[in-house]
């Protein structure tokens, strides 16, 4: 092969691999800088001035200023407990022991944009210590988050007073992260 062609191919392959790998390492699915709690992901050093360039890049590339982890712990997932990707064709049941944090929220977002659907500690109805929320494109009884216009739906669980929460332990059991099971699909 002609050396100039080899050069061009090498540069093309190298630049492509470099950029794709960089973009992958700043996604929520990146296993390198996220903490995994079951199917929940968390960027543990968000907002820290000494955080690594990947964590910084993840947030600022989207124009976001991450809340310091001592203020809010934010967890993301785009899969159900069975490991399948969330889809608006299905109904899901989210279940969690009522969080001890003074504020918390569950929201549903998607790549389609728009204001996320949000339920906070003030919005949910629950008879006991268990909070259940149905995620579905069609109206559901009780606590409901509407899955519509959601391309690649993503559930976000936020616990305020992050430093208090982490002082109680950071295992997934100690954090009390919700389960998310698929109920049915159309």
């Amino acid at each position, binding site marked *: 092969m002609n050396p100039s062609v080899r050069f061009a191919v090498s540069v093309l392959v190298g630049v492509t691999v470099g950029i794709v790998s960089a973009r992958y390492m700043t996604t929520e699915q990146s296993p390198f800088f996220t903490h995994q709690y079951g199917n929940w992901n968390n960027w543990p050093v968000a907002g820290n*001035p000494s955080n690594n360039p990947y964590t910084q890049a993840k947030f600022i590339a989207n124009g976001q200023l991450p809340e310091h982890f001592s203020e809010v712990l934010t967890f993301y997932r785009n899969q159900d407990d069975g490991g399948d990707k969330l889809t608006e064709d299905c109904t899901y049941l989210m279940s969690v022991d009522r969080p001890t944090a003074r504020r918390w929220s569950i929201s549903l977002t998607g790549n389609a944009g728009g204001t996320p659907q949000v339920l906070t500690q003030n919005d949910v109805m629950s008879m006991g210590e268990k909070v259940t929320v149905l995620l579905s494109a069609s109206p559901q009884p009780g606590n409901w988050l509407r899955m519509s216009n959601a391309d690649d739906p993503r559930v976000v669980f936020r616990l305020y007073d992050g430093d208090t929460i982490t002082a109680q332990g950071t295992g997934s059991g100690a954090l009390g992260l919700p389960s998310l099971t698929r109920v049915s699909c159309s």
Partner: protein
Amino acid sequence: MTSTRTFWALFTVLTAIAAHLCYILFVPSQQFQTKLDTILAENGINKLTLAVPGTAAASIAEYPGELTYALCLFDLSTGPLRINARVPDQYWALEVYNTRGGTIYTLNDQQAPRKQFSLYLYDDDPDPEAIVNAANSVGSSINSITILTGTQTGIVVIRSAAANRLEAARSAEALQNTSCSLASS
């Protein structure tokens, strides 16, 4: 032949590493700077702005359904910044960021001394006594907090609870009575 292949393989790997590092170190910060420039053009410097829908500032509001956002882009090259904060009697958090998105300082409703206080931001000064004197000259008191930012430019973001209409109204009222300006003005 083998050494030629090894050379090109190594060249490809090194190119990939260089592209990877360049992307991580420069592209996101450049994208963010472009966003800050847009907010700056719309709102100006050293001025608190409510991030209401339709404004450039709203683009930093990641959770608009549960929080009200206000931000102030600052430049300390001409002197310290003063934030006169009036905060609602509910959850709020104030964070000072550098222009790369790193947190410099954070304060929330459970840590603040009062519902009304002043925050003074100074760039690093080699002479600590000068900083103390400057703080005193602009009226430092028990209700004021002094922060050394270590950078001349950055962003102050105030997030306040807005999960329902009552919280949103309280937040909006408090933030409208909060100011961000040069301490000398």
